[in-house]
């Protein structure tokens, strides 16, 4: 077992475009209606095939708004032909019957962003009708029997809305609710500075998630994306911080044995773990060379440095005193650290 998401899924996230019908202040990729570029279908097909050969078995298409990406269905078809699990993350506004029918046999799960109560959601989405429009789309998804879940962005200020969100999710027939801490990257860095939940808020959020998990047991799967310090202390491999001496042998393994999630950004650059991760640790730019070649080079040249970065972050996470709060946001820690030269 390695990495934060375990061994079941080795994930390639694709952000094929920054084009979006909304311009949310918390967007990690600064997507907007003004953005126009997108990755080509040929490039995506080739990258998917080579990622599959490296052991990646799940693909999540995000963006931007993936439903505005012209080659979405063809990309999903190709991923399916490779036997990959497919998901799409969307704001839900464009999920009309026609699109839902197109998605029906192409995806395993639709993830829909939901940022709180109706008023909060509309404010975060910058659209006074975003909640209403999204809710109106859910019936088509239910009729098509597509499994769907909601993603709630946890900030420093909205934990009290989580219960209403969970209740809404159950009423609407969602299978899962992912509670994800706000990442202060992209537009959120300037628009929502100091709004990411700190470790104290994450501790309260865990208690609330546990309470809601019990309340909605059997009806809703609640996923809390915080890192449990105890768990990491017990299993450093979950944050790629276990001791490794045999780098020469590891380079023979498929890339997915070494790192997951990978993120293919709209620029063509593939980075580990999270959108916006420092290019110093990038797998490579697939517009310049094939994913396969980049992967081979990364294993030999960059992987040891990546592991050193992970080890440094791990050491900082666990070296604090016993009064340290139980949860933290590892993705945020390692993102910040990736932008600082290693010592």
């Amino acid at each position: 077992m390695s990495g934060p998401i375990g061994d079941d899924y080795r994930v390639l996230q694709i952000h094929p475009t920054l084009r979006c019908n909304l311009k949310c202040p918390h967007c990690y990729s600064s997507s907007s209606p003004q953005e126009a570029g997108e990755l080509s279908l040929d490039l995506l097909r080739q990258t998917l095939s080579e990622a599959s050969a490296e052991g990646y078995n799940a693909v999540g298409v995000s963006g931007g708004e993936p439903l505005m990406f012209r080659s979405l269905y063809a990309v999903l078809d190709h991923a399916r032909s490779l036997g990959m699990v497919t998901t799409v993350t969307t704001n839900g506004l464009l999920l009309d019957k026609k699109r839902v029918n197109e998605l029906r046999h192409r995806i395993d799960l639709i993830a829909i962003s939901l940022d709180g109560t109706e008023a909060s959601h509309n404010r975060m989405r910058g659209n006074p009708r975003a909640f209403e429009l999204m809710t109106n789309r859910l019936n088509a998804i239910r009729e098509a029997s597509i499994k769907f879940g909601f993603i709630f962005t946890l900030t420093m200020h909205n934990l009290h809305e989580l219960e209403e969100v969970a209740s809404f999710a159950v009423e609407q027939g969602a299978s899962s609710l992912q509670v994800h801490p706000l990442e202060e990257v992209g537009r959120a860095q300037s628009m929502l500075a100091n709004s990411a939940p700190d470790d104290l808020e994450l501790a309260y959020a865990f208690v609330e998630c546990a309470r809601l998990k019990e309340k909605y047991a059997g009806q809703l799967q609640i996923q809390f994306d915080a890192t449990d310090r105890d768990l990491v202390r017990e299993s450093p491999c979950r944050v790629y911080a276990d001791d490794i001496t045999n780098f020469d042998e590891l380079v023979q393994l498929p890339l997915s044995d070494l790192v997951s999630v990978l993120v293919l950004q709209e620029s063509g650059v593939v980075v580990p773990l999270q959108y916006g991760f420092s290019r110093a640790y990038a797998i490579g730019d697939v517009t310049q060379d094939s994913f396969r070649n980049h992967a081979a080079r990364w294993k030999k040249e960059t992987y040891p440095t990546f592991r050193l970065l992970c080890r440094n972050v791990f050491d900082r996470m666990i070296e604090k005193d016993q009064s340290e709060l139980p949860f933290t946001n590892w993705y945020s820690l390692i993102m910040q650290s990736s932008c600082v030269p290693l010592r």
Partner: protein
Amino acid sequence: MSKEARGSEKLWDRIFEHDQPTQAKLGEAVAAARLNYKILRWWNYGKPAIDRVKATFDVPTAESGALIQDILHSAAGNKASIILDAFPYGVPQLERVQVNVTFEKTV
């Protein structure tokens, strides 16, 4: 830091039933919550956990028993429940078995 109240401040009464929250009480609440809710993995943005996987295997009859044992073992290792159907076919002698498997995560 923004002056807007923390979300947790706005729901303290739900967590602590009107007691004044303290670090010690938070520690107790986390410990209690951990008893039935442990975070086993965490996901990047936009990647909710998929808790159901379907697979179909087509194998010679002689190998089907070992395959089914492997699947059951794997399911136990992953703390997953399993729905398993086996459809034997072959005329006149049973030659192959199609095994349909659904894993469902229980954690």
